[in-house]
């Protein structure tokens, strides 16, 4: 198993914070790969009480990738902002795969009413992803807030800290963004 380069991410994060947009492009593949690695291992170990919040995965990725001992809360939140994008990409890709697989048809002798949740959610995730891209064009900050809250599982406070804005702003942005996205998705589906 190839280990991710320890510490490299810390340097890249610092560069990104100092305004180097290229750094983000280098961070993403590392985070993406690590999240996948964690996901696979989590499954092979099958811990019964493993919670599934995306945050838990991201947190683990952070501990793995960044030498976190001296990292500040803000450093961690910056990482979370990046990891939320990676998580979004992972979940969207997976959702698309799921939807494609479904079209292949399924054998069902015994009904599994659980079939619905995943496919329903897959369709919603893909639709939300597209609507978020549209929102990005109108209001990038709101798009980012939704990405962090929904795909990254970050709390309002964590989101505020990562983006250097107030909790009140996050709440207001979130509310409007949600309305905007719902409207957009309804328009798309009709």
């Amino acid at each position, binding site marked *: 198993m190839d280990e991710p380069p320890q510490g490299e991410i810390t340097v890249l994060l610092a560069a990104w914070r100092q305004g180097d947009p290229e750094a983000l492009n280098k961070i993403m593949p590392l985070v993406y790969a690590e999240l996948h690695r964690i996901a696979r291992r989590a499954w092979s170990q*099958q811990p019964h009480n493993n919670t599934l919040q995306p945050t838990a995965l991201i947190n683990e990725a952070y501990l793995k990738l960044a030498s976190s001992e001296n990292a500040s809360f803000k450093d961690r939140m910056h990482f979370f902002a990046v990891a939320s994008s990676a998580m979004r990409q992972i979940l969207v890709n*997976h959702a698309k795969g799921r939807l494609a697989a479904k079209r292949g048809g399924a054998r069902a002798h015994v009904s599994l009413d659980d079939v619905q949740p995943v496919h329903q959610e897959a369709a919603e995730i893909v639709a939300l992803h597209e609507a978020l891209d549209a929102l990005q064009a109108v209001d990038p900050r709101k798009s980012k807030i939704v990405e962090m809250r929904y795909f990254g599982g970050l709390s309002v406070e964590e989101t505020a800290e990562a983006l250097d804005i107030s909790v009140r702003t996050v709440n207001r942005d979130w509310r409007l963004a949600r*309305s905007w996205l719902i*409207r957009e998705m309804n328009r798309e589906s009709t």
Partner: protein
Amino acid sequence: MSRQPEWEEIERIYHEALDLPVRERRALLARLDPRLREEVESLIEADSSTMLLTTPPTHMAADLLDGQPGGLAAGQRVGRYEIESLLSIGGMGEVYLARGDGGMPVALKILRPHLVVSAQAVDRFETEARAASALRHPNIVTVYESGRSPAGLFIAMEWLDGSTFRSVIHAGEVELSKAINWGGQAASAIAAAHRAGILHRDIKPENIMLVKTGVLKILDFGLARHGTPDGAEPNAIGASGTISGTLSGTLLYMSPEILRGETATSASDVFSLGAFLYELAAGRHPFAGDTPLDVFEAIECRPVAPMSSLRTGIPVRIDQLVLEMLDREPEMRPSAEEVAEALRTL
């Protein structure tokens, strides 16, 4: 992009309007120029939707973590059962054909460990599985046992050869005499469960099977599903969290009281059964809509068209009975027992 210059204004008015009592909000909106007003109004309307972003995408994450669902190989043992083949894969688990003692075929449903996120969820699941396994009725799938294994929580149940009513409905118009007969079988199963103090909570065609012998079997009685992870926080934006987007597959059969977030009662099961009977006999769902929101609205306030307006030959008594089952007031609905009786004597 003509909208962009106005965006800040839309945003300002949106928040201002939401902070106002409804009457003052209307007055504020009435003063706006039509385009701006349309923008703000449509956003405010979307704000009241409970359909989106209320819970994290846990099912998808579980599915992703599983990597390869259906990971159990033929010959592998789960409890005292030996896996034979994978029958179907769902969001929260898989169903396998397995062999029990003496080679008896069983359907083995395995719940994904990742979605069982709390001790309470496990307890609830096991309690309800025990309750369901106590139900013995010719129209209810027999649950042999439930238990834990390294592969996850499992339920062993009667293996059925047939298809779900979803495919029966898809296949085209159903003979009325058959629809009535099946409706009677379903109602008597539900009545038996209600007598035992067990609710189904999720009656819909996907959960009802037609066995090749012509017998109808209801699946998944009272089993815990769709568990909202206990850590999932209800949305801060006023959404109750009772309807997550992932539930919308079931939305069509949900009673108005469930949509309002109230506790399910036996009358809620009767409502869902009524929607199923309607769909079976009339060939169209009583609350069909293009979007979840349409369905939501239909269940809450659209008058239900009598089945006789969709199909000729529907006996008046059936039409009346189904409409009563779909009454918005739970206390106005007949009991499952009464429904079974009415369908039997028809």
